[in-house]
């Protein structure tokens, strides 16, 4: 075989290898899931609905709604008229935990709930802050303006 022929075969092999590499690279790029708008919408709806529904729920404590208990906790207004949970923050956390254990936990979703007021007021936090992609709940809920409630669902 002449030298030129050997070079041509070598070139063909290189072209072949480069083509295979490009195809593999393309495959990996395409296989990577893009940000799914529908999924994001569903997660956002889920976060918003979970939080707003939970806050409107009537609790076992004197038929108070959860948003009233949360407001009492953040504003430090009063203790609760029900035993054994007289601290509104502890009681609100208990109720949120019961709801999340049977919903988001059951559906294998990681989440982070943060309800806060001013810097000096107490906070309610449940779960661990999301590290990767996050779908936050929309601003919601029948809470006074100084209270911020946010539920993040980690994607």
């Amino acid at each position, binding site marked *: 075989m002449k030298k030129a022929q050997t070079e041509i075969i070598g070139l063909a092999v290189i072209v072949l290898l480069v083509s295979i590499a490009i195809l593999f690279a393309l495959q990996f790029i395409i296989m990577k899931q893009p940000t799914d708008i529908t999924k994001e*919408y569903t997660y956002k709806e889920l976060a918003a609905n*979970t939080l707003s529904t939970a806050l409107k729920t009537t609790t076992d404590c004197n038929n108070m709604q959860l948003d009233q208990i949360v407001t009492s906790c953040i504003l430090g207004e009063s203790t609760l008229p029900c035993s054994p949970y007289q601290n509104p923050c502890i009681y609100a956390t208990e109720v949120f935990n019961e709801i999340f254990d049977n*919903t988001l936990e059951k559906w294998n979703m990681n989440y982070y709930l943060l309800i806060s007021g001013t810097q000096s007021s107490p906070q309610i936090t449940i779960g661990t802050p999301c590290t990767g992609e996050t779908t936050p709940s929309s601003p919601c809920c029948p809470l006074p303006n100084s209270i911020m409630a946010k539920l993040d669902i980690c994607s």
Partner: protein
Amino acid sequence: MKPQKLKIFNGIGKQIIILPRKSQVKMFETIAILVIFFFLIVLGFSFYAKLQKITAQREIAEKTTDDAVRIAQEIYYLPELQYTEKNDPKGAIDLYKLNHTKSIIDLNPEYYFNVIGYANVSIQSIYGEQLIQNPTVIYFNPKTDYSDLITTHLPILLYNPLSGKYSFGVIDIGVYI
């Protein structure tokens, strides 16, 4: 096409080695290039087929999620379930209506099939007042030859008009593909 003949003599006798001609070498080259070309075509085609399959699967999954969200919205606003005051919906499901919804749906299967399609819909109470049947199945219409069942959950408020209490509930929607 005649091959080139090369005569080599050694001590035992005559030996003939046949070497290919230049045109034969060229033909071999052409065949090799064609083989590589077809290999690339097959590789490209298999890649394209795989890509199409992934795209189709993604579209099906997206459509199913869309369907589940649409069904959830339809169910949420069904007058058969909504708690209303003087025809004003209050954004909650009436527990007393819920107990009779399945019988209404069973009486009009064609109408509800057009609205919901092949799916299962149930409502369960998570916190607060428990339902008579928890979960309460309000629609059950499985597809006979389905490849997958995708379930979506949507939290909702359940309202008891007699006690005036709100409970935390969830609509579970299973859509058949």
